[in-house]
C-alpha cells in the first residue's frame, strides 16, 4: 500500500465542485483509492463519501491505494487537491 498526504487548497474545502472533479479524476485513474480524514476513511470514487468527510480548506487528508505502482497517479491526485482550483 502507498499513501500520500494532501492539504486541501480549495477555499471552501472539498465541497461540490472540487469534490466532483477529484472523484472524476479518481475514476479516470482506474485505481481503488481511499481518502481519510479525522479517522474516517472514504472511497475516493464515491462523491457522497468524499463530500461527507467535510474536509475544509487547510485540512490534511490522506490518500491510499493498494496498487504499489500507482505512485505517480496518486501524486497527480494530491496535486489536484492541493491546487484547489479543481
Amino acid at each position, binding site marked *: 500500500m502507498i499513501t500520500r498526504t494532501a492539504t486541501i487548497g480549495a477555499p471552501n474545502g472539498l465541497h*461540490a*465542485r472540487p469534490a*466532483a*472533479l477529484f472523484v472524476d479524476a479518481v475514476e479516470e485513474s482506474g485505481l481503488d483509492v481511499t481518502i481519510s480524514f479525522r479517522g474516517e476513511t472514504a472511497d475516493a470514487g*464515491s*462523491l*457522497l463519501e468524499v463530500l*461527507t468527510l*467535510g474536509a475544509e480548506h487547510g485540512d490534511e487528508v490522506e490518500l491510499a491505494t493498494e496498487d504499489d505502482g500507482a505512485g505517480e497517479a496518486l501524486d497527480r491526485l494530491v496535486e489536484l487537491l492541493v491546487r484547489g482550483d479543481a
Partner: protein
Amino acid sequence: MFGLGKKKETLLAPFAGAVVGVDQVPDPVFSQKMLGDGFAVVPAADAGTVDVVAPCAGRLAKVFNTGHAFALVSDQGLEVLVHIGLETVEMKGEGFEALAATGDHVDAGQPVIRADVAAIRAGGRDPITPVVCTKAKQVAKLVVSDGDAGPAATVTLN
C-alpha cells in the same frame, strides 16, 4: 436481484416551489450533472424562511456543519444530496439551522434544515436548491415531474 422488478424511489420537492430539471441550474457543477442527475426547486420570490425536508425516507449520511446541504442514503440505498442555494457554503452557517443530525433516520417530508431564503437572496445568491443522485450507477432513469402535486421526481434504480 432476486428476480424482482426494478425498484423505484420517488423524491419529494424539499420545499414548495417551481420544480425544474437539474440541467436548468445556473451552475455547471449541477447543470452538467457533475454531482449527478436530479431536479431543482426554485422558492417563491417572497419566500422568507422555509423548512427543507427529506425528499425520501432514509438515513442522514451528513448534515453539513454549515447547514447549507445534507446527504441522505434512502432506505433502498439511493444516495441523494440536497444543496440549498448556490455558493451558499460561503455563508458559513449563517441563515441555516439544522433540525436533524448526521446519522438520524428521517421520514420522507421530515424537516432537516430551516433555511432563510430571504437572507440567501439578500446576499446576492441564488436560492435554487438542487436535489441530485450522487451515485450515477444507481440510477437507471430519472423522470422529473412537471406538475405541482405529488413527487418532484421518480428514479428507477439499477
